[in-house]
């Protein structure tokens, strides 16, 4: 009888592990580029992300035209000249949290993680590695990370005439609060 009970508990816990997928459709991505002439910044709050707590698989996707700038001309140039968002409407990251086993999703705390994978921007895919923090607080999961990318790595050409106004590297911040994905 006792064995049966243990077996039941085991089956239940296996199911719980397999159900530990988190998602968000309100992911926030902001970026800045600081150049001598001016500061460029933009924000997007409709990014989509999935985090698999069991395997560490981690994905983000964002729509380029959803980035909001302060100045209309910047937004236009960003979409039309640099990101060519009509042709490449999305940017994506697909990878893994390398040390997912160090995150205890049942215990409150801020866990430092290393993330590595493939980033696709402007139709070009490049490997990236960065660090981030997964926070667990009262059963709620959130994540944040910063990374820096080189504009030239993704085949984005900045005309010589304005090259001094636009930084060669862009600092990107991502953050979101996750929700538990319903088991399917």
């Amino acid at each position, binding site marked *: 009888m006792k064995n049966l009970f243990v077996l039941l508990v085991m089956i239940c816990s296996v199911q719980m592990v397999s159900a530990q997928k988190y998602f968000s459709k309100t992911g926030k991505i902001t970026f800045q580029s600081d150049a001598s002439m001016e500061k460029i910044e933009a924000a997007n709050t*409709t*990014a989509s992300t999935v985090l698999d707590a069991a395997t560490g698989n981690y994905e983000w996707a964002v*729509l380029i035209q*959803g980035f909001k700038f302060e100045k*209309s001309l910047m937004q236009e140039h960003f979409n039309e000249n640099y990101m060519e*968002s*009509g042709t490449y409407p999305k940017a994506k990251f697909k990878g893994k949290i390398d040390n997912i086993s160090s995150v205890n999703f049942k215990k409150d705390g801020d866990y430092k993680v290393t993330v590595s994978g493939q980033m696709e921007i402007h139709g070009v895919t490049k490997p990236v590695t960065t660090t981030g923090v997964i926070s667990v607080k009262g059963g709620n999961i959130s994540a944040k990370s910063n990374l820096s990318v080189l504009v030239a790595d993704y085949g984005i050409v900045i005309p010589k005439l304005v090259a001094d106004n636009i930084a060669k590297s862009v600092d990107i911040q991502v953050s979101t609060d996750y929700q538990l994905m319903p088991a399917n």
Partner: protein
Amino acid sequence: MKNIIIAVVVLFTLGAGVAYYMYNKPVASLESKKADVSVSADQILADYESDEKTANDKYLGKVVEVKGKVATITSEEGKHKVQLETSNPIALVICELEEGKDALALKVGEDASIKGLCSGYLSDVILVQSTVVTE
């Protein structure tokens, strides 16, 4: 001669002023803009689900007015979002409202008409800089 110099200076100042104004112009509200396309929430999702590329040609970057039943209304960090139901139970049309705009008198379960810039499809169709259309 003096007049010409004055004229040149005045023209230059005006030109610089216009350029400065254009350069700093904030992103314009879409509220007073006429929609390029009008479509139901079911239809825009169906278009994206069947062929994303063709759907992007039709909607991406355009001012789209979408009609549908309100599934949820959410608010996060001062940004309001209205989600419209579609025939697919797990896909929505997510409309992020323009800063400073709220969902007005919209209620969950009622029909609504929302106008915004279609930024594309990520398992849901997304509109940004949206406003609630009131007849």
